[in-house]
């Protein structure tokens, strides 16, 4: 095959390598060249591991020649959000406090990707410790939205969404604590799937909020998301919260059939400020589904308004605890010139953490103070139960819930001037994490300015298949087709 290979889907890439039409070496070289050319401007990657990637590609090509099995992702180059721990490859979580740390082990999802034949190109940018919605909170660099470089790629998995959208990898893994996969996917015109809590092992995921974090794929197609999920999902004894449930063949779920599918439209999600163009794109999506036999059902999720405050108790509380281990002593960077132990802690953490991380540590520490636990953390957990109950009730009548992924398309750098403005960017995606449900964002058109719009689907626990099947139909009906950012190719 001649011509560019960087726009092939992950599925096509694996097929063409398996059939011998393309070599993994050529694919990897093309991506590495494109990263060199394009990423200086875009800023998606924090670290590129060209040597290892070439070595892995050569191994795939050797296997292919030797007629050994290549794995479902044989030769597919991937980029990993930098909160995923990679053996021998620097992992920073976008924070200065982890600068220079070379992990001695791979995250479970990285092991699974490698076993499936995927090739790790490198690590991509994110908000520090995944705390943010624009990737502006990375301690290292700014990542730009490939559709409009004056705008953010979303966050916190903004490096992943930018790299996938700009053809700098075939697929990426991100993490989603309150929307950090779905929101950047929407902003960059990718598919982003947050699996059911426990569907994917968190072993080796630098923890932000343990009861909310989940790893998932960011891809150019729904089928790719299904393919990657098949590889990374499944029980892991090292993660006691991972679910012991069989992993279906998600790619088989993409039947193209949504006849009789009952789609819940929660009115609470449509009452606030939503850009007209977003509303219009969502309406077109609904119409396309109806046209193909799906049924729209008005539903209510009455506790929706409490999701944001509950989230901003639970997530910072857990974060304040999870981030207690960063003292610069066993890994990462210790401050110099400390006079005693306390001074070492204060200096290392003072210099190592950025302002947003410090803000959340303070919020969380406050919420967990002795005597305040009941009023804050415990109450927030009770709200979670109510939110989950809302969804349980809704799922007695509908097969999935459809909302916009975000109230606006990608915003400009620096436009969310207060933390609260930034927190509100995630208003539609938080409930899904609080309830532990699977959620997906699928592109459903462009604004007149040429910015992608995402539609969010939320499903029953462990029913990723229905989200993927519906997402696949949406993608074909109102997706971006062959439209690519900035006319680049």
């Amino acid at each position, binding site marked *: 095959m001649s011509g560019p290979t960087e726009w092939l889907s992950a599925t096509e890439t694996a097929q063409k390598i398996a059939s011998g039409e393309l070599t993994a070496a050529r694919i990897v070289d093309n991506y590495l060249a494109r990263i060199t050319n394009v990423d200086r401007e875009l800023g998606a990657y924090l670290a590129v591991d060209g040597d290892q990637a070439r070595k892995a590609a050569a191994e795939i090509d050797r296997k292919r020649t030797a007629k050994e099995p290549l794995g479902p992702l044989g030769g597919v180059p991937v980029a990993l959000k930098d909160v995923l721990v990679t053996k021998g490859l620097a992992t920073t979580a976008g924070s200065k406090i982890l600068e220079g740390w070379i992990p001695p082990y791979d995250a479970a999802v990285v092991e699974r990707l490698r076993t499936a034949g995927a090739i790790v190109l490198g690590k991509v940018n994110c908000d520090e410790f995944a705390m943010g919605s624009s990737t502006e909170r990375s301690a290292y660099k700014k990542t730009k939205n490939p559709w409009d470089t004056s705008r953010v790629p979303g966050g916190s998995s903004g490096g992943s969404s930018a790299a996938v959208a700009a053809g700098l990898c075939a697929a990426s893994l991100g993490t989603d604590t309150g929307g950090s996969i779905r929101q950047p996917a929407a902003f960059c015109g990718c598919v982003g799937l947050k699996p059911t809590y426990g569907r994917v092992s968190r*072993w080796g995921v630098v923890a932000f909020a343990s009861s909310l974090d989940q790893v998932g794929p960011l891809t150019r197609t729904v089928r790719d998301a299904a393919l990657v999920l098949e590889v990374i999902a499944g029980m892991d004894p090292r993660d*006691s919260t991972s679910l012991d449930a069989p992993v279906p063949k998600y790619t088989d779920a993409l039947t193209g059939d949504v006849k009789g599918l009952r789609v819940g439209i929660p009115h609470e999600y449509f009452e606030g400020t939503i850009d007209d163009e977003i509303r219009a794109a969502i309406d077109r999506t609904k119409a396309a589904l109806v046209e193909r036999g799906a049924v729209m059902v008005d539903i209510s999720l009455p506790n929706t308004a409490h999701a944001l405050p509950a989230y901003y108790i639970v997530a910072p509380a857990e974060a304040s*605890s999870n981030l207690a281990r960063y*003292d610069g002593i066993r890994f990462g960077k210790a401050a110099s010139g400390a006079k005693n132990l306390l001074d070492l802690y204060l200096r290392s953490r003072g210099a190592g953490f950025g302002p947003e991380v410090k803000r959340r540590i303070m919020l969380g520490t406050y919420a967990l103070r*002795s005597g305040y636990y009941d009023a804050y953390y415990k109450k927030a957990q009770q709200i979670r139960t109510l939110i989950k109950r809302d969804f349980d009730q809704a799922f007695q009548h509908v097969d999935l819930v459809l909302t916009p992924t975000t109230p606006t398309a990608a915003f400009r750098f620096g436009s969310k001037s207060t933390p609260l403005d930034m927190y509100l960017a995630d208003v539609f995606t938080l409930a899904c994490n609080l309830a532990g449900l699977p959620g997906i964002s699928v592109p459903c058109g462009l604004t007149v300015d040429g910015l992608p719009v995402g539609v969010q689907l939320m499903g029953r626990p462990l029913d990723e298949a229905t989200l993927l099947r519906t997402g696949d139909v949406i993608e074909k009906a109102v997706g971006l087709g062959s439209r690519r950012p900035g006319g680049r190719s």
Partner: protein
Amino acid sequence: MIPEELLEHWEPVIGLEVHVQLATESKAFSPSAVKFGAPPNSLTDPVVLGMPGTLPAFNRRALELALRLGVATESKIRARARFARKHYFYPDQPKGYQISQYDEPLCEDGHLDLILAGEVRRVRLTRIHLEEDAGKNTHIGAFSHVDLNRAGVALVEVVSAPEMRSADEAAEFMRALHRLVRWLEISEADMEKGQLRCDANVSVRRRGEDRLGTRTELKNINSFRFVQNAIEHEIVRQVRLLDDGERIIQETRLWDSERGTSESMRSKETAEDYRYFPDPDLPPVVVDAVLMGGVLRSLPELPNQRFDRYLKLGLAADDARTLISERALAEYFDAAVKAHPGDQSGRMIANWLLTELLGALNADGKTIEETPMPAERLSEVLRLVEDGTISGKIGKEIFEESYRTGDAPSAIVERRGVQQISDEAALWEIVDQVVAANSRQAEAYASGKDGLFGFFVGQVMKATSGRANPVITSDLLHKRLGR
């Protein structure tokens, strides 16, 4: 000992928090091995080091062991216990928090029975919870060294109610708990290895007062003797302060066993806030019927149950108490009783076990577990004595030889030809000879020198190399000598 007059107006109140290291092969939440004395930081893994992205996976073995203790102390066991994170910054705690239990502990409201001055004293246990150990810091010159071999080792913390009244009682509590956890085989509980560690909360109050006084917490008391000494010292310290009109500061004090005194470590008034919350990485610990069934099956007969059984058997309370001081001793006793149905009261066995065998083991510096003399062999010696094959005196010699050589007692008897002579005709012959050979003494005895009777017994024994049945011998001598 505390001078009595010092406590005339003041009543000590003591509560203990005891950490017991569970005898699991691997750590509480990660695969690293648990061993004592390994090179520093050789028993670690990414979880123990608190590396980013690592997660705890609970070692179910620790749960089973903790449940044994819960059952043995008749605690209420929670069907769904939870782990909680206890936060503090210190290099011995790599995650910045310790995985412990807070408001949903595994066990509550149990008790431990002590025997003090012959009386049973029941001490309530507020709770028993699971947690992980911290590492160990050593300070050498300008450097602090951190060894994380112990970090993440599974512990239970046993918390007594504040209802002990003396250092003796506290020390006895430690001994009873030590005995129990070893009995249940849930811990080696070697205090020198830090497998059993005690913190004591001590306060005093005016006699008759209900309210508790301000307490201090004593740390670093890692032997039974130190428990006693440190608490006595603290009671005296507090009473003297109060008698002088001063007040007690709530603080943590470190016991210095060399100097026999304690010093303030930190004041609790600036106490840390541990910010407990349920660990989101660990699902609730569910204790269901299947698990409890397995635990109950694994549970040996408990010391107190066995004590009662021994009393019913017919043992003296002192002997019974000694036997239950160590499970191996009690097991030995039971095995010996089983092998010797002739002594169902067990008195003779207890007697031989506690004097002869323990004496010999003591002399060799061996424990009962290391005995070269199995219970069946001790029983055999007793059987030979009881059925008259050998005399009790010979029995002790046979015991010693069997203990030393490992030979079967009956074989030794055979070899040495020491079977007792109980045949009356044979003994008459010897008695006749002895009396004939000592006619002067026989006359003296006949004329009232009672003390000479023993002389004749001795002569018969001498003539038979001690094999003459002493009962029959004395019977025949009485007949022969006429009195």
